[in-house]
């Protein structure tokens, strides 16, 4: 199929960016969205132009590197799917596709479609762990039985891949879904109980320092999340936060 791509180009963090239009031919429905981008880049390189820079790595939908705003939707039109797992059969011959980076003050653009998401790392450094030494002198794993339903729920919260689509989808650029998924995983497990108070306070504080917006419960984050992280996590974090502060 033949496509018209409108892509955000920005030479560096301080440079002014703009949308640039590229026609692209020979796109096959079995290609992934990023393989389509590979073809464009190969063409640009062969013409001696600079290719479009974008983050990507595993191309299996699990590392959370890829992050494209496709026609105004994080990771494009297909539900529960990362950009790398989106396939071109979801588009039609003759389509125009706009591709932009995540837009959020806490995710500054580095180059083209690449943004700096280190703010997510810092939120986790603030408390998303159990302070247990990695010495191997821990108790036998089965001495901590956990109700299956709770373990499954904690697992579900832990499936967040840290891509940032929730922030990109939110009109306030809030990181509540991301942060609450991490808080929830530990809140649901007995291992996390001991440090629960400090954890939620420190992580929320860091989230605010990074410049993420507030949550106004529109739920766009859950709709766009490629892993289906649920809004219940936000409710749970709010209740953890309240508990920690009274």
């Amino acid at each position, binding site marked *: 199929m033949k496509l018209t791509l409108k892509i955000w180009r920005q030479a560096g963090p301080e440079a002014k960016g703009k949308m640039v239009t590229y026609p692209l031919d020979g796109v096959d429905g*079995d290609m992934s969205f990023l393989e389509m981008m590979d*073809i464009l880049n190969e063409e640009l390189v062969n013409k001696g132009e600079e*290719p479009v820079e974008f983050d990507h790595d*595993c191309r*299996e939908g699990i590392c959370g590197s890829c992050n494209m705003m496709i026609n105004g939707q994080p990771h494009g039109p297909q539900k529960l799917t990362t950009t790398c797992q989106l396939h071109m059969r979801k588009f039609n011959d003759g389509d125009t596709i706009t591709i932009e980076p995540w837009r959020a003050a806490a995710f500054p653009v580095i180059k083209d479609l690449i943004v700096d998401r280190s703010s997510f790392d810092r939120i986790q450094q603030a408390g998303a*762990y159990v302070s247990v030494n990695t010495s191997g002198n821990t108790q036998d*794993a089965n001495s901590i039985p956990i109700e299956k339903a709770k373990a499954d729920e904690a697992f579900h919260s832990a499936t967040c891949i840290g891509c940032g689509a929730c922030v990109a989808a939110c009109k306030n650029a809030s990181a509540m879904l991301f942060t609450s998924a991490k808080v929830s995983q530990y809140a649901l497990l007995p291992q996390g109980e001991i440090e629960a108070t400090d954890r939620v306070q420190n992580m929320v504080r860091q989230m605010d320092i990074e410049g993420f917006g507030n949550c106004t419960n529109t739920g766009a984050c859950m709709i766009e999340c490629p892993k289906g992280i649920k809004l219940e996590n936000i409710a749970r974090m709010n209740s953890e936060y309240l508990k920690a502060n009274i």
Partner: protein
Amino acid sequence: MSVLDSKVPKGPLAEKWVNHKNHINLVNPANKRNIDVIVVGTGLAGGSAAATLAELGYNVKTFCYNDSPRRAHSIAAQGGINAAKNYQGDGDSNFRLFYDTIKGGDYRSREANVHRLAEVSSNIIDQCVAQGVPFAREYGGLLDNRSFGGVLVSRTFYAAGQTGQQLLLGAYSALNRQINRGKVTPFNRHEMLDLVKVDGKARGIIARNLVTGEIERHGAHAVVIASGGYGNVFFLSTNAMGSNVMAAWRTHRRGAHFANPCYTQIHPTCIPVSGEHQSKLTLMSESLRNDGRIWVPKNLEDAKAIREGKLRGVDLKEEDRDYYLERRYPAFGNLVPRDVASRAAKERCDAGYGVNKTGNAVYLDFAASFLRYGKIEALTSGHKDASEAEMIALGKKVIEKKYGNLFDMYMNITDENPYEVPMKIFPAVHYTMGGLWVDYNLQTTVPGCFAAGEANFSDHGANRLGASALMQGLADGYFVLPYTIGDYLADEIRTGPISTETAEFDQAEKDTRARIEKLMNGAGVHSVDYYHKKLGLIMWNKCGMSRNETDLKSAMDEIAELRADFWKNVKVPGSADTKNQELEKAGRVADFLELGELFAKDALDRNESCGGHFREEYQTEEGEALRDDVNYAYVSAWEYNENPRDAKLHKENLVFENVELKTRSYK
């Protein structure tokens, strides 16, 4: 040629590690504060090593090319992690895990290392649970297990189809805790471009900041390489797009021997190549072989009709199907080890029985499981006279619970519904057992430079069993390297801070800059991918699932020629002073172009078949691998030469005191 000393401690196998730990040199806490360690790579091995080293008191710097350690490719491991917990009471033990791993590796790994791995395996699960890793559980609240290829017990712990992500997030959380305490300084979006040696010892690295293009010097008392494997030398593999051999290869260039490069694991259950545009291959977890049956048509005419789209596999009668793994290996059936399953698929496809357009695919069929699970489900839910259709529908629900995410992924990529038609699969490059040669302490042949995880060679021999990569990464990082490195660092307490203002650092930085300049100033004829794809084809066709002398020799010539062409004609646009992904790729492909030739040379040198290394000249009448224990029970460790064909061979003789070398049989 010299014979390498693995420094395996004396004494009975089961006591070696405990005794070694008891006699290893320790560094007192006050001194640890004055010692710096660099860890390159932050996946399971690097992340867990960095966290533990920091916790012990060392000052740690970590380096990774991704924007966050959480994205390392350990994250993509699906199936699980082995541990000899024997929670299922099915007779598992440290010895059995050790034995299965040695046998699975076709008797080409080091006994003492493998036993140590089995010994610490249980501790890994304890550690991860304590950290809050959400493993799958049974209704009673205890941990669940599944079984994997090449073994007869259920010892695999898992977290749905994303065990790798959950374990990596566990290691990442431990790392974050140390970053928060200021004991680890992370350098993300950085790539190691050279190892710096001073007086023969590893004293630091040269790194490139991938955002600004700056070339940086970092000094340390020891350097740990945990940068993963080199499967991307094949261009198409299940590795991440950025996975590369650079850190390991730069270390090799500076004197670390590279061991068994030809030992590559080609995983049997991957989604087949769909076209020219293919950028990577996707694995379907080995756990699917617990419930899926692998087959091709019995008759060539049927296979041809399927390929031409005139017949659907699902319509083929039971008696016209060839469940070739069950036929050839009745004892293990669909759960034979990966190398055996891959070769068997290739054998059928080469004989003309392949079932997709390219002829390179076999079926992985769940129809029997739908019915089997559906029957149980119907009976236990009080639905005593369910029809076959009803049972199949119930069975599909059970399968969906077990593998739903994998089925979704398959559907998404292929646009076919595996609940209705069998999956099509084909082997793909997945893991590399070879890597930097290390002794029992995980130290390379460069003093002060260590290697952990997939980047080293030591534990999996010529073939890795499923669910053992995660185990080895965490074993090395949490429980082995942080202690064995003390043996070396105990002599460094009087060294003082490592200066980067020395002639050695000057020279290494100069070399690095010259290399980048050379890459930027090629004649500009072909893109980096052009070369990478060409290299990949040579590797796949001539150094892939089966190899022979003629092909390997021509592969060496072709790669050498391609490498010369690359350095003359490669095209890297843009500037070296900004983010430049083409430049990053160029540096990596340049190293693959050297490694590829050494890989072929290593395969040529090994005149036997073992594990993932299958030489057509050395097979039994039944087409099974024919090992030569008299002449080849050694590790090939290559000393660097800029013309890989002239690399010098050193050997480590493998001594087996606790297992009898047998022909590996899964029949």
